[in-house]
């Protein structure tokens, strides 16, 4: 199983939170980071329903969004609802790690977001 680890990196020098990884802090160029795991639910920042999918996706559409965890980590994820479910920027989603794609015959696990009902 391949898992996309959403580990964020907090700069030891200035505290800036990064995801994905950078070798140097985007703010102060510090090179040392504390690993921060995403925590809590996710606030949806933006999203889109994509109907022209790339090679490797054998389905009619895909809903993708960017969200912010309660501890400030921001990440992209797939949104697990049908296309008719109304979505809104700002709504709260529950994160889970589920298959998001098959690569080289193997499931890749990544961030899935489901609206709190």
């Amino acid at each position: 199983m391949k898992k996309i680890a959403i580990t964020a990196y907090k700069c030891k020098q200035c505290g800036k939170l990064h995801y994905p990884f950078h070798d140097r802090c985007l703010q102060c160029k510090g090179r040392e980071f504390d690993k921060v795991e995403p925590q809590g639910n996710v606030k949806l920042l933006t999203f889109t329903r994509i109907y022209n999918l790339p090679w490797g996706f054998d389905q009619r559409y895909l809903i993708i969004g960017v969200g912010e965890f309660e501890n400030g980590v921001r990440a992209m994820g797939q949104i697990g609802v049908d296309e008719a479910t109304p979505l809104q920027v700002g709504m709260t989603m529950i994160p889970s790690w589920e298959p998001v794609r098959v690569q080289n015959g193997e499931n890749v696990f990544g961030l899935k977001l489901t609206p709190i009902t």
Partner: protein
Amino acid sequence: MRDVAIIGVGMIPFGRRDEDTLMDLLAWASLKALDDAGLGDKSVDAVYVANMGGGMIQRQTAIASSLVDRLSLLPAAAETIENGPASGASALKNGLLAVASGYYDTVLVVGGEKMREVTGWRATDFVATMTHPQAEYPYGITLPGMAGMFTRLYMEKYGVTREMLLAISLKNQEMGTLNPYAHVEMALDRAGIFDSRDAIVNNPTSADPLHLYDLCPVSDGAAAVVICPLDMAKKLTSKPPVLIAGFGQATDTHTLQEREDPTDLKAVTLAAQQAFERAKMKPSDIHVAELHDAFTILEIAESEHIGFFPKGQGGKAAVEGKTRLGGQLPINLSGGLKARGHPVGATGVAQVVDIVWQLRHELPKTRQVKNAQNGLTINFGGFGNNVLCFILRRVQD
């Protein structure tokens, strides 16, 4: 540093070119530019080739070495420049620096791409490989998807409406019908794609809130320019030389989520500022622009970030016709990426070719900005993480 002028330009019609190889496209556009420059059988010192997908789509690498061989330009220096959809402008930038520095006198810059060789499914994946390999790509995000997420935020923050996006599609596809090099030569009917029942079928959602006609097509094509020092230009060509008056380039975070304000296209602002500074001009000095409208929202957002219109006013300006021929600042009279097409490696060069035609006053009346002296291009790479801006100026006789 020496002043650098464009003395020759060439383009081949964009579209679906099943019969031609990538090398055919690059070679033909190059010959047109060399001939336009009046170089005859003379060689050039160096060749810069912009291409993004040769290695992935055609399984061909070291394209520049192959091209100088085909064109009998040996032993000219040659290299391929890959910088995503901004490869074209990047190649011209490298040529510009080489001539300005004095290392080379005559340089051929050519950009080309053949994307229709693979299915739309594969082409979409190819373009998506420029997204972040862990944080974005595995989720199935596409460039239209990135644009969809950006559009949602831009609409919310600045009140951009579908009506405003529609104004861009209608204008650019109308201009495409007048451009013999354009991929899409079909004018759009407003009712057919917007306010009738058929619109849902004709113009389906692609990456909401963006619809099919908010997106540029996937194209084959190539474009080329020849540059040399300005003081040499007049000896080589009888056509009015066009000076590369200003150039700017800036980068931004790879992912949208790490931008403090994801609606702020900082790299566009910075690239344009640098170009204006170097050209000693301001936005109001520009008479015609070719912007990177891979998605309709980008023409609006770029026109604001460059400073042509205040933030939040670009969409309104488009609806009011200010960006049409005869308006305050005509944008994408070529049809833009929306209609000319977007063979990724070719685009940045093609934009410059179209501006050169404008500044030489060589276009038919239906597309020519009367007496245009200064033009601007924006070539937008990734989702705004690598942006180049050129300001061109017609040299007075």
